[in-house]
C-alpha cells in the first residue's frame, strides 16, 4: 500500500456528475500544492476548451489541456483533451492516442489509470469520482494490484453513484472518502 508522502502523481477520473466534485475540490487545494494532477473526464467534444477555463477560474494552479510529449510538472493540472486517450510514458511525459474507444469512452479512464499505474506504481494516487459508466473500474483494479493508492468518492454523496460503486465492488479497496475527505487527503500530500 502506498505511503501518502511518496505520491508523485494524482490522477482523477470521473464521468457524469464528477465536474461538481472537481469544482469543490480544486479551490480547497493548498497554495503550495506540489503534486501534479491529471484529470480524465468524459466530456462532450463540442464543449471543447471551456472545461479548462472553468477549472482555471477555481484554482491558483495552472490548468492546461494535456499536450503530447509534455513533461509532467508539479504545479500543473492536466486535462485530458476530448476524443483522445491520455497515456503516460516511462520518462514522465504525456502521450495522446486516437485508438478505438474503450468502454464507449475516449478518453478512457481505464486506459489512463493503467498507463499511469504501470509507470508510477506506489507513487500514484487514483481518485475515482461520480459517473454512470463502468469505465475506471478495470483501471482501479490494475492500479491497486501494482500498489497505487486508490480513493473512491463516497457513492452516497456522488451525483451518479454507479462508477464509485463499481470500483468498490470490483476491488478490495475500502478507501471511500467524501469530497471533504478527498480534499484533506490531497492537502496532506
Amino acid at each position, binding site marked *: 500500500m502506498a505511503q501518502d508522502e511518496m505520491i508523485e502523481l494524482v490522477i482523477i477520473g470521473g464521468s457524469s456528475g464528477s465536474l461538481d466534485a472537481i469544482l469543490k475540490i480544486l479551490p480547497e487545494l493548498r497554495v503550495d500544492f506540489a503534486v501534479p494532477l491529471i484529470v480524465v473526464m468524459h466530456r462532450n467534444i463540442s464543449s471543447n476548451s471551456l472545461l479548462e477555463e472553468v477549472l482555471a477560474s477555481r484554482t491558483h494552479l495552472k490548468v492546461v489541456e494535456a*499536450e503530447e510529449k509534455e513533461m509532467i510538472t508539479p504545479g500543473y493540472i492536466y486535462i485530458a483533451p476530448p476524443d483522445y486517450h491520455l497515456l503516460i510514458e516511462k520518462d514522465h511525459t504525456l502521450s495522446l492516442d486516437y485508438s478505438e474507444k474503450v468502454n464507449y469512452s475516449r478518453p478512457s479512464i481505464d*486506459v489512463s489509470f493503467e498507463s499511469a499505474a504501470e509507470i508510477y506504481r506506489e507513487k500514484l494516487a487514483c481518485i475515482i469520482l461520480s459517473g454512470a459508466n463502468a469505465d475506471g473500474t478495470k483501471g482501479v483494479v490494475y492500479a491497486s494490484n501494482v500498489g497505487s493508492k486508490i480513493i473512491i468518492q463516497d457513492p452516497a454523496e456522488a451525483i451518479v453513484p454507479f462508477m464509485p460503486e463499481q470500483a468498490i465492488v470490483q476491488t478490495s479497496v475500502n478507501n471511500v472518502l467524501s469530497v471533504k475527505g478527498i480534499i484533506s487527503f490531497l492537502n496532506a500530500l
Partner: protein
Amino acid sequence: MTSTAGKIEWEEFENLLVDITDQYGYDFSQYSKASLQRRILSFYLKGKFGGYQDFKNRLFSDANFFMYFVEEVTVNVTEMFRDPHFYKGLREKILPILSTYPFIRIWHAGCSTGEEVYSMAILLKEANILHKSLLYATDLNPTVVESAKSGIFKVSSMQQYSENYISSGGQKDFSSYYRANYNLAKFDEELTSKMVFSTHNLVSDSSFNEFQLILCRNVLIYFEKKLQSRVLELFDKSLDNLGFLALGSKESIKFSSIASLYIPFDTKEKIWRKMK
C-alpha cells in the same frame, strides 16, 4: 511480456522491437511506447497464445501473421471530414491559393483506409480543381492502402460523415458522392481516378516527389520527438516553397528543426506554410 499474461515487462517489450527490426525491417523503436505497448499487449492477450514464447514463434515464423500484427498494433482509426473545422479551413483558406496553380500535388502521409483522401477529393471537386490535382495516398500498412484504393466504406458510417461534411461547409447532398449497395458505399470513380496509392514507411522510406500540400494527421502523435523531427524534415524536403503542411489537431512543428522555416498559416487548424 511474461507468460503470466497481463503484463509486458519493458525489457522484453524493447527486445521484441529490436527483433522485429532485425527480421522484418520495420523499426518501431522510436514510437511512443505507452500506446504501442498497450496495443501489443492487447493483441497478445486477444490471440490466446500458449504463452509468450508461442506468440514470438508465430510472429517470427509467419510473415503474413506479422503483417496482421503490424496492422493491429498501429492505430488505423479514421473518419471522413474528421474535425470538420479543419476541412472548412482548407476550403476557405488553402484551396483558393492552390487553385491559382496549374497543377496541384497533394500527399496524404499515413492515409489509413483513405477516408481523409476521399474527403479531400470532394473538397477539390467542389472547388472545381479536382481535374488538375493528383492525390498521393500512402501508409505503412498494405492492407489499409488496398482498402483505401477500393473507395468502399461502410454505409453505417455515412450518417456521421454526412454531418461532418455539412459542418465542413459542404452544401451538396453527401449521398450524391457514392452508390450504396447493401451495407457498403462505393465512392465515385471520378474521385478515385485522381488518386495514387502506395505503401510508404515514414521511418525508412525517402522523399518521392514535390508537393504543394502535405497532410499528415494523427500519425506523429505515435512517434517520439526525435522521429517526429526526422519525419518533419522528410516533409520539408518534399514540399515546394510556399507549400502547406497540415498536421492533426494535437500535433505541432513547434519544437522541431524545421520550425524556423515555416510560418503558422492557420494556428488553430495546425496548418503551416513553408517560407523558403
